[in-house]
């Protein structure tokens, strides 16, 4: 039985292998990477990745199936998996064959006379990371685990060295009998280890650590070259479904030497639906789509782009538009992905979408009818320009900024909130360039009476809060992690954190002596004498350091914020304009170009980098003009597309090939509901007559707004606004009074329309226009008539129930 099974398996395996090369023939050269390499260390072999391109435009990885031959086995050998192992000094040529093609790799071996001993920093620290020993859940926990503490993700080798070699009388290692070392026995699972088995017997991790211990567990010389950068190859792959792709990770040290670290790097896949990756960088495509492959090695990240495309069945690329920079880059990318974009949305759906996105309320019937009737070709551009002149535009964008800047009576006095609100409204109304806007905010001082923008600082609990809020809002960067340890997904360290901290540490918020007895009345003082903040890791002052940048020489006694604000808002700043553009983009689509918008990292790269670059450049060239940016975005075809997918773009949820329906934000939903029904909402805690978009903060009594996710402004994060859906919202719509009371009100829309004694067609059209900002389709009219007829002479009730139904539909709650 067993033999038959074995035979069967062998047969099947053969079948599979013979089926592996796609019907799609290889057209380009076979490329083995690197094309030449120099090996200087017996324990540091180098991998080869063998690739070719097919006629259909796929990248195919032949690393696993290629044959490798060395011209001189006495100099260098190659394993069947493509790892080049140095043997003795000299040169050799490697011949790589796959798919009937050949590639050559030249190898030079220059081994030192004495074998190089293992290095703690270059060899052992990566083992501790790869083994997971220094993870946050394990010995990297701030209190260690079971008495053994390592720095989180290997942040500080100077601390890990004594922990491993010195503590408790060298209990953890035995230099004289390495196999008996506790650290090995535990990691191998030969002694009970709560963290489980981390090393395989005889595997690379085991061998590296064992060798280092046997060589005396030595510390490194101060002259040891440091890690400078890590690169991943290939950087971009277009793969077939189910394809496998080997990635190669190469570290570069300060002496210029290169080292293949594919086996000790840590690989992850950002979109797990699309691909999975194993321990040594072999990626398997599991679904159509696109993902970043992120590799981490000793705190440095490298990112590759992995795209899985469907088979090319006569795909016709869309002509790339030249009239709009957004469409140019989006169509280029979609063509790469073999995706055709959806058609443009019809006039009604476009108008509703643009209206809600730009002014926070859906259009009224007369706007809809006029727009549909307009036959001019540039009517959409005109409509966009008109929206930007509306008062509601100021309401809507002031609301957004109020959220982001956390203008709230939770932390500010009542007059300060209104003063700050007015300051923001004035800035939006006169389209204050964003660089000026940010500079004013970041350098403000005094109480609200001196400068309303000083409220920005009065919101902060302390300097840490200011630092985190300002980097998140104006750079899209989250720095909190780096307060205590290097950021796990980005290259921020405590030096970066406290470098920014030092720019803001002169600010002190005190109770305002001019407003005694007023709750939360504060004044913002700047103590020019304050020096640099202390970096707790080194216990030394960390001079001001621009976010991810240099350390400027500042004179003593200046307001350091001014320098930071100048740097931040300079045209070539890498964070400011880019993060703002990305943020604004996310208000008009279901996601940012980089996402999430307030956690920008190199490890979550933009879905369309040329698009983000081009928009950023355009934004800076137009002097940080927010309305111009919105005009560019909203007038693009990408923004105006229908949500109905075609046969090529249904799976795409990231590249803006079709509109992804979005729920109306809380305020827009409520204001649209009020407009549709004609019945106002009264808010406790706000002046009478304010609509939802005009509210001063989240401290108003409105179950509706709370339920639909209006933020309390306690965080400088878009994520505080809940745009999700839940059962309570549905129940509130179905059973709650927000809709029912409005449609049944004597002064509600159905009652008003009934008074006009409209015929069924007109009545139905009006109900559709008010509720959904569009006319009904013929089929809908027919259905509606049947529905009304069922009510007999109770026409008013029929109109009420019908409108109730419309407002409960997804056509109302969503932007299609």
């Amino acid at each position: 039985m067993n033999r038959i099974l074995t035979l069967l398996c062998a047969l099947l395996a053969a079948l599979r292998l013979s089926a592996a090369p796609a019907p799609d023939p290889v057209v380009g050269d076979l490329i083995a990477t690197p094309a030449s390499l120099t090996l200087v260390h017996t324990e540091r072999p180098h991998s080869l990745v063998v690739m070719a391109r097919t006629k259909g435009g796929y990248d195919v990885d032949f690393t696993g199936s290629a044959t490798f031959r060395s011209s001189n086995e006495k100099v260098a050998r190659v394993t069947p998996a493509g790892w080049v192992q140095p043997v003795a000094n000299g040169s050799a040529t490697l011949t790589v064959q796959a798919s009937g093609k050949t590639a050559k790799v030249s190898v030079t071996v220059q081994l030192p006379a004495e074998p190089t001993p293992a290095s703690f920093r270059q060899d052992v620290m990566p083992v501790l990371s790869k083994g997971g020993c220094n993870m946050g859940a394990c010995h990297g926990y701030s209190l260690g685990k079971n008495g053994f503490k390592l720095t989180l993700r290997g942040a500080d080798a100077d601390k890990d060295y004594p922990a491993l070699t010195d503590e408790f009388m060298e209990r953890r290692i035995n230099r004289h009998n390495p196999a008996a070392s506790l650290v090995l026995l535990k990691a191998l699972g030969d002694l009970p280890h709560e963290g489980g088995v981390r090393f395989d017997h005889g595997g690379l991790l085991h061998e590296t650590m064992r060798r280092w211990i046997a060589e005396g567990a030595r510390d490194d010389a101060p002259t040891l070259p440091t890690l400078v950068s890590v690169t991943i190859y290939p950087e971009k792959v277009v793969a077939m479904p189910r394809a496998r792709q080997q990635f190669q990770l190469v570290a570069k040290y300060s002496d210029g030497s290169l080292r293949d670290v594919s086996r000790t790097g840590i690989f992850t896949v950002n979109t797990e639906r699309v691909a999975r990756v194993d321990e040594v960088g072999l990626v398997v495509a599991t679904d159509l789509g696109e993902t970043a492959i992120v590799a981490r090695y000793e705190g440095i990240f490298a990112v590759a782009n992995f795209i899985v495309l469907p088979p090319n069945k006569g795909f016709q690329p869309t002509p790339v538009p030249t009239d709009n920079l957004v469409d140019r880059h989006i169509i280029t990318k979609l063509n790469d992905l073999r995706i055709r974009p959806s058609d443009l949305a019809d006039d009604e759906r476009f108008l509703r979408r643009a209206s809600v996105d730009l002014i926070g309320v859906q259009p009224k019937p007369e706007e809809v009818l006029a727009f549909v009737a307009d036959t001019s070709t540039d009517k959409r551009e005109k409509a966009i320009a008109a929206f930007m002149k509306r008062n509601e535009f100021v309401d809507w964008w002031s609301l957004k900024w109020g959220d982001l800047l956390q203008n709230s009576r939770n932390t500010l006095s009542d007059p300060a909130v209104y003063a700050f609100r007015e300051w923001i409204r004035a800035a939006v109304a006169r389209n204050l360039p964003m660089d000026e806007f940010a500079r004013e905010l970041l350098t403000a001082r005094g109480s609200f009476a001196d400068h309303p923008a000083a409220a920005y600082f009065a919101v902060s609990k302390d300097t840490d809060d200011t630092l985190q809020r300002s980097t998140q809002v104006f750079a899209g960067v989250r720095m909190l992690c780096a307060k205590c340890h290097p950021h796990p997904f980005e290259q921020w360290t405590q030096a970066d954190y406290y470098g920014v901290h030092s720019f803001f540490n002169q600010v002190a918020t005190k109770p305002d002596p001019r407003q005694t007895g007023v709750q939360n009345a504060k004044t913002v003082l700047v103590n020019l004498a304050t020096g640099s903040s202390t970096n707790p890791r080194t216990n030394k002052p960390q001079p001001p350091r621009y976010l991810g940048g240099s350390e400027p020489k500042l004179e003593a006694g200046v307001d350091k914020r001014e320098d930071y604000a100048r740097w931040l808002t300079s045209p070539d700043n890498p964070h400011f304009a880019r993060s703002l553009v990305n943020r604004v983009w996310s208000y008009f689509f279901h996601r940012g170009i980089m996402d999430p918008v307030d956690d920008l990292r190199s490890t979550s790269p933009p879905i369309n980098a040329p698009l983000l670059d081009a928009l950023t450049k355009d934004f800076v060239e137009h002097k940080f003009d927010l309305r111009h940016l919105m005009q560019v975005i909203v007038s693009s075809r990408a923004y105006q597309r229908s949500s109905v997918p075609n046969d090529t773009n249904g799976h795409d949820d990231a590249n803006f090939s079709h509109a992804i329906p979005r729920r109306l934000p809380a305020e827009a939903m409520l204001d649209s509901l009020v407009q549709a029904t004609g019945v106002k909402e009264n808010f406790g805690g706000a002046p009478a007559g304010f609509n939802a978009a005009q509210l001063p903060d989240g401290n108003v009594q409105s179950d509706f707004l709370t339920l639909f996710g209006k933020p309390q402004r306690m965080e400088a994060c878009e994520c505080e606004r809940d745009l999700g859906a839940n059962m309570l919202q549905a129940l509130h719509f179905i059973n709650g009074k927000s809709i029912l009371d409005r449609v049944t009100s004597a002064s509600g829309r159905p009652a008003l329309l009934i008074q006009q004694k409209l015929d069924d067609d007109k009545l139905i059209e009006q109900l559709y226009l008010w509720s959904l900002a569009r006319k009904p389709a013929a089929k809908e009219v027919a259905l509606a008539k049947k529905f009304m007829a069922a009510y007999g002479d109770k026409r008013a009730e029929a109109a009420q129930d019908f409108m109730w139904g419309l407002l409960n539909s997804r056509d109302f709650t969503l932007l299609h």
Partner: protein
Amino acid sequence: MKHGLNTGKEPIGWSVGCTMHGLGYRGVHHLQPSPLIRVLSVFHPWLKAVFALLLCVSTARAADVSYQREVWPIFKRHCLGCHTEGKAKGGLRLDDIAALKKGGKHGALFVAGKPDKSLLMQQVTGDPPEMPENEPPLTAEKVKILRDWIAQGAKIDAAPKVERPPVVIPATYAFAPSVTSVSLSPDGKLAAVAVRSEVVLFNVDDDAPPRRLATDFDLITHVEFSPDGKRLGAAGGSPQQFGGVIFFDPADGKRQSSRRVGNDTLFKGSFSPDGQTIALGGSGGAIHLIPVDAKAEVKAIDLHSDWVMAVAYTPDGKQLVSGSRDKTTKVSSVESLKLLRSIDQSPDIINAVATDGTNAISAGNARALNGFDFKLALAGVEVTGSGNGARPANNRDQYVRAYETQPEAVMALAMSGDRKLLAVATRAAEVRVYQTDNRQRKVAIAKAPAPVQAVALNQDGTRLLLGSKTGEVQVYDTATAAAKLLKTLVPVPVAPARAAAR
């Protein structure tokens, strides 16, 4: 109230279905087939047949599950961290066949032949499974192995072999081994030094070759002459395996007796004044009182919440001072085997304790060296149970007797036999000797090979022995304030080239 209206593409009206699917989160996605279906859909039909066949192959394997080859590796990888000797969470041990068959406090682990009635299967399945705790669930394949094994009768084909590397003592060391503990005979003529797995004895006053006494411990943590100098105790063990003590006759180097205690190394301690018992710190938080008489019973005082790093007897032999990785210093009663009082809580680990009879003394990583007056610290304390007894009459301020702060973390303390002098070893190159009556410095050795990990004085404090992490050992004449170096040596043979490399 369902309207059944159709608005073109989208159905009208809320329903649970549309709420959950249509409004999942910020972006609303069109319904798509699950990833699995879509992956499968790109396969050719015959490939599906391959899958079906492969599935057959994997089910065919249920034929013979081997405990040793298949089940034990799963236990080892996922379970043994907790269910093992010494830890045995839930009373369950998997590292021993008898214990495995017995099960834990929740009953038998399995019912042979009935996986569905077996606790093991209930624990590793479910959503999410109870076990492994705080870890990803076992893969379906591993669950199946366990299930098949039980279904087939939970047979144990062979006991798993746990191979532990043997203790190896090199004839010549490649690197000078760290000195972990030192002791001087009462007359100061014979020195004992512990390095890794062996004890080395050498004469201070001549250059006779050192005598090497091998042990079967991976790490010796403590070595000490008995008060009469006729016995040498060496304690330690192998980390996470066993603890133990070996008694040698220093005259001929022969073993008198040995004993294993617990499942991890023992730490530092001291002989009782009558020399009949050695008290040693343990990894479970207990002090182990190990009689020299191999037949007498070992006693334990369980009082710390973490490793006990050091223990010292009072001169009357009635009380013990202990310091721990839990950062506390405690006093306990030898007679009742109970804690008397936690007398101090340091900001960091305590590495060493001592007592001059009047004060308990402790020090550690926090660099503070403190005495604590016994009388005042224990005033009002009565032994009433396992706790702190009666409320103490005095607070710490009243009984603390501080010495000067040390330059670096304190690694070891040594008291002269007459309890008049206290030697302090730190990570720094300076070793200081204090008079216990006035806590003033008497001797300072400036250039010891740092970090100094071990220190000892003889009966009258005229000789001081120290051992360094570098492997060097030094003996000083400390009769006068200007200490005189008598001897420096590395007590074991070290291969020259690599010794230099260090």
